[in-house]
């Protein structure tokens, strides 16, 4: 077996190696840990890109762990969607990592680098696995790592928020296990593809139970994705996290979205009886509410980080509006927008950090502060990030929203969807303009803090913005890929063929 | 060298026996592994047991036999008290037993024996280490009880733990 055959598992194995190595190295030399982290990230990016290239033609790679055939062992499945998420994760991780290192945020506590690697391992595993229980395990890996990262730097605010974040997620994990128990009890399998086949055979007397299982699973994903009303945990958690970490967390809610997109068509598709398209009646209203709440939060936010956190909720809502369409077109739009909103949220958090660093004691509060060094440049970056996050042209948020508008126009409730998307954009624009003008235009009569020694802190947000620009310029290819990924997800037969091979006759 | 390799030889023997009991089969392979672990584990745990009490093997065995018998009897006695003795007839008492034993290990075994045997429970040691506080469930004559315990157990333990 050649090494190329192991490509699928490398995104999990690389950080799983780099994590302990960084741990052991960190006890001695930080530079070594940074080097290990960087090497890991670069090789992760290379692997993810290679997988993307492989998946581009529609090939679905399946990797049987321990060589046990599916559905008896655990399989990893690398299709277009998984590859896309892996690339996004790697890119985002590079941005967050470089910001942490350049701003020395990684020194503000123990174990930043191992935790960061384990976080990536959890994310990549969640994106790759084709097994429902294994998904739970990777959820836990990424969660426990996120607890550590979220608390990085500590302080009362983070600790308070941390308690809430952890407790809510523990409840989520419990719900996940209950859902898994129900589904295993009914289908006798854990492999997603296999379960998708077996749900059709669930007898009439068990339909209620099946639907309950599906709904519980979906509610767990919604909790992770911070879909209203299960979003309450997010704001403070993200707003108080170390900004480099918050930037990385931009993808955490997307794990929930991803899982929903992955599991619902695969397991709860047409043939699932009472559980067919299980979240259908609830998803659109919840998505609309999320978008409204999120952008209302952006509208009234009193600090840049708080605003960014609300923007995450709003963008998830927007994204979910598209997901609720469950068509190749709307799901494609959702995936395009998913990448965009992840990068945009990261950019917002990072710019907020840059501003806070340079404004001294004024932090990122939306109130007039000193005319700090490099204000024009930072203002421009904020504007770009805000344009992206609110969905104004020319950045990809606009294209994403257009894609969503167009694709949901066929839904019966399209009027609501449109109204909410357009009105929330308005709220976002006004909110960002207000905060931006307060922070970057208005000056308070106060001592100007010293200019930072370096301008390194601008690098990571600049990369994020550049990527957003690239995502806009390359929107043709990107939306095409996203659409193809969506189509592949919506045709579970493809992954059934790839995963179960001859096990299914 | 022997001290290094076998910091607690008695313990090593005990561990090998224990291993054989756990494995539940008599084979050279099992014995081999048992001996390996019986040597390695005490070396590993030696830092946590810096003292090296010497134990005489034969008296220890006979002591164990006596104690086992006493346990049997004690249980019946206590059962009898629990079932049939009225509370107002019960004569519980605190006994302060002067200790002749000096090593903590020996005192512990003594106290443990007292706890396991007729109607007595070791509750505490004095701050100076010379008295053992024992609670007796039914001791109409506390002094006799003290004497009995000292002669039956402590004397034997002195022999077992003597250097």
């Amino acid at each position, binding site marked *: 077996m050649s090494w190329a055959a192991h490509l699928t598992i490398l995104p999990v194995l690389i950080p799983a190696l780099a994590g302990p190595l960084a741990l052991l190295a960190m006890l001695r030399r930080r530079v070594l840990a940074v080097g290990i982290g960087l090497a890991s990230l670069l090789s992760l990016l290379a692997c993810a890109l290679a997988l993307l290239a492989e998946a581009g033609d529609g090939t679905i790679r399946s990797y049987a762990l321990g060589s046990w055939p599916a559905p008896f062992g655990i399989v990893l499945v690398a299709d277009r969607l998984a590859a896309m998420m892996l690339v996004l994760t790697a890119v985002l991780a590079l941005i967050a990592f470089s910001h942490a290192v350049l701003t020395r945020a990684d020194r503000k506590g123990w174990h930043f680098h191992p935790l960061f690697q384990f976080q990536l391992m959890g994310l990549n595993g969640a994106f790759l696995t084709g097994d429902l229980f294994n998904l739970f395990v990777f959820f836990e890996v990424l969660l426990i790592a996120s607890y550590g990262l979220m608390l990085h730097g500590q302080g009362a605010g983070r600790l308070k928020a941390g308690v809430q974040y952890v407790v809510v997620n523990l409840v989520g994990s419990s719900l996940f296990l209950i859902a898994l128990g129900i589904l295993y009890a009914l289908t006798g399998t854990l492999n997603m593809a296999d379960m998708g086949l077996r749900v059709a055979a669930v007898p009439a007397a068990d339909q209620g139970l099946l639907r309950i299982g599906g709904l519980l699973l979906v509610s767990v994903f919604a909790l992770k994705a911070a879909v209203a009303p299960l979003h309450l945990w997010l704001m403070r958690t993200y707003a108080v996290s170390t900004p480099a970490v918050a930037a990385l967390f931009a993808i955490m809610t997307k794990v929930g979205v991803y899982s929903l997109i992955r599991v619902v068509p695969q397991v709860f598709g047409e043939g699932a009886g009472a559980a067919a398209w299980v979240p259908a009646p609830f998803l659109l209203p919840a998505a609309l509410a999320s978008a409204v709440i999120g952008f209302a939060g952006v509208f009234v936010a009193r600090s840049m980080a708080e605003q960014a956190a609300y923007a995450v909720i709003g963008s998830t809502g927007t994204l979910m509006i598209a997901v609720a369409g469950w068509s190749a077109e709307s799901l494609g739009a959702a995936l395009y927008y998913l990448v965009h909103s992840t990068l945009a949220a990261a950019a917002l958090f990072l710019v907020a950090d840059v501003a806070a660093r340079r404004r001294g004691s004024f932090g990122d509060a939306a109130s007039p502060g000193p005319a700090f060094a490099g204000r024009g440049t930072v203002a421009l970056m904020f504007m770009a990030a805000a344009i992206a996050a609110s969905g104004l042209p020319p950045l990809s948020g606009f294209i994403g929203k257009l894609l969503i508008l167009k694709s949901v126009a066929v839904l019966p409730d399209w009027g609501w969807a449109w109204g909410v998307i357009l009105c929330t954009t308005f709220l976002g624009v006004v909110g960002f303009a207000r905060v931006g003008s307060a922070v970057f235009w208005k000056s308070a009569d106060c001592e100007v803090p010293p200019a930072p020694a370096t301008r390194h802190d601008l690098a990571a947000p600049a990369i994020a913005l550049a990527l957003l620009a690239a995502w806009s310029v390359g929107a043709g290819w990107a939306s095409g890929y996203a659409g193809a990924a969506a189509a592949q997800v919506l045709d579970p037969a493809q992954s059934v063929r790839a995963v179960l091979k001859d096990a299914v006759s | 060298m022997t001290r290094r390799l076998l910091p607690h030889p008695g313990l090593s023997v005990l561990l090998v026996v224990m291993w054989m009991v756990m494995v539940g089969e008599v084979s050279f392979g099992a014995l081999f592994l048992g001996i390996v672990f019986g040597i390695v584990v005490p070396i590993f745990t030696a830092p946590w047991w810096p003292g090296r009490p010497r134990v005489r093997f034969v008296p220890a065995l006979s002591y164990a036999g006596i104690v086992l018998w006493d346990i049997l009897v004690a249980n019946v006695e206590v059962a009898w008290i629990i*079932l049939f003795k009225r509370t107002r007839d*019960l004569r*519980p008492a605190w006994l302060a037993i002067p200790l002749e034993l000096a090593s903590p290990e020996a005192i512990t075994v003594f106290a443990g024996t007292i706890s396991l045997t007729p109607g007595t429970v070791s509750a505490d040691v004095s*701050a100076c280490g010379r008295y053992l506080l024992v609670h007796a469930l039914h001791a109409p004559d506390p002094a006799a009880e003290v004497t009995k315990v000292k002669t039956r157990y402590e004397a034997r333990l002195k022999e077992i733990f003597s250097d």
Partner: protein
Amino acid sequence: MSTATFAQWLVSALIVIGGSFALIGSWGLVRLPSLMERLHGPTKATTLGLGALLVASVAWFHLARGTWTTHELLVSVFLFMTAPISANMIAKVHLHRLRQHEPTAPAGPAGTPAPPPGGVDWATHEVPHRGTPGDFVGD
């Protein structure tokens, strides 16, 4: 009497004895007047109860099934080693609370133990003197 019947008899008897002693121990826990008296029940009656059950088990698997199970022995060893420690610690808690005049820790019929002769106190109330067996960790 065949081996099998003997086995049946023996095991049955041991089970009944074991069960009875366990029950008596727990009954003592219920009926005896104060903590120190109750402490006698579990540390003794139950050990024999359990011992009988463990012997029953060894006998059953050997006589009826022809296999030696020996883990029961280990169970007893561990119990005999740990039961006095548990009792000791619980007694210490009682002594401590007695000294603190904790209302939920009444003295019981034996009263409060007098300090040992020689002007010292029990270890629960006074730091064990250096160099004595009670000060064990210093070595």
